């Protein structure tokens, strides 16, 4: 990928994490009256980390930092499109927590360019999405 495409890809990742953060926030916003304090704390902590990664990806896009990134991102692009749709339809708190943990691990793997970590995180999220 050229630098412009790398920047576009980083921007796309940022949007994915942004959508997940909004989904988690909306979940808490809607169910806050029925969630336990522990669940609220877990989800809010996860949301904060997802927001931080989204910010990080948008900054990376500005920096156009993802040079020579193609080998690390194969497979991520297609997978992330389906996750956001799935999380909107899930109402089981445990699955939401597994997905949020999975996307945080995925972000860490992407930032550190850890191919194995990306693969295992994608599988964890896919498992939770399927239920």
């Amino acid at each position, binding site marked *: 990928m050229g*630098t*412009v495409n790398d*920047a*576009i890809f980083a*921007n796309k990742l*940022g*949007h994915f994490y*942004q959508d997940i*953060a*909004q989904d988690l*926030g909306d979940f*808490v*916003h809607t169910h*806050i009256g029925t969630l336990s304090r522990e669940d*609220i704390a877990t989800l*809010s902590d996860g*949301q*904060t980390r997802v*927001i931080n990664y*989204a*910010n990080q990806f*948008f*900054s990376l*896009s*500005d*920096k*156009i*930092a993802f040079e020579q990134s193609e080998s690390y991102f194969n497979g991520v692009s297609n997978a992330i499109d389906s996750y956001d749709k799935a999380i909107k339809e899930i109402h089981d708190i445990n699955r939401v927590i597994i997905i949020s943990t999975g996307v945080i691990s995925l972000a860490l793997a992407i930032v550190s360019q850890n191919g194995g970590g990306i693969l295992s995180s994608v599988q964890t999220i896919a498992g939770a999405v399927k239920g």
Partner: protein
Amino acid sequence: MKNTRLLASGLLLLCIIQAGCVQLKEVHAFTETCQTTLDKDVQISYGYVDYCQDSCYIFNVSGRQLADFDCNCQNDEGYDTVIKKEYNILSAYFCALGKLAGTQSKINFAPIATAIQAGTYGNMVVTTEESTVVSTLATVATDLLTTKYKSKKIREILVRYNDTLAIAMELLKLHIDNLKSKIELMRTKIQQRCDLLMANNLTDAEKWSTVYIYKQKRKELAAIISSYDKRYGSLDKIKQGHSTLYANVNDLNSATLKKKVIDLASDIIYFNNN
């Protein structure tokens, strides 16, 4: 006989001159709309410095004293300057295209006096590629605005610089979208913090204050985000218009092209007025 030949030669010469200076009114209308829009959008009131000032307290959950929320946004001023320069250079480029389209445009030389240098500006790194494409457009604009070229030169310019302009526009769109998205993330964070505060057994007065601040800040950010959507939409249409001119470079007078560029100009004006 000699006079007839002279007359015919004169007429032919006039035709050639006319062909070289033909006015492309619709193309000019489009380039002028682009120039006006870019000049307007550069004046946006909320930039990286404003984002820095807001984000440094909205994302700070551990601060205890007022001093913990002070922030240094000096670097972000450089970022805003780069974005402004890119807008100004693109505006100058469309001004120059307008000049070639055969009608005199309002020319502002000031913006293109300085090009973009590669380097670090706050959070943004201007890469050599970005610096090169923007500086190339600045050079082209300066050349076209200061030299008496014929209108047929527009074809050469569209062909030679279409890719350069496309990259420059794509990078600027990305910068606009990245900042807009960060502002949206701030809005998400405000919702999270207010949800958590409201769940903490507040008094009625505290709840009212929380709701008031939440609603006011959300409204303020919604207006800013909307202005960024317009900016992004305009850039997208301008890029699309330039590609359309490039695709029809051998027939800039065709009725189809005229309709397309006028429609695009109308879309850009619509973005700005709604």
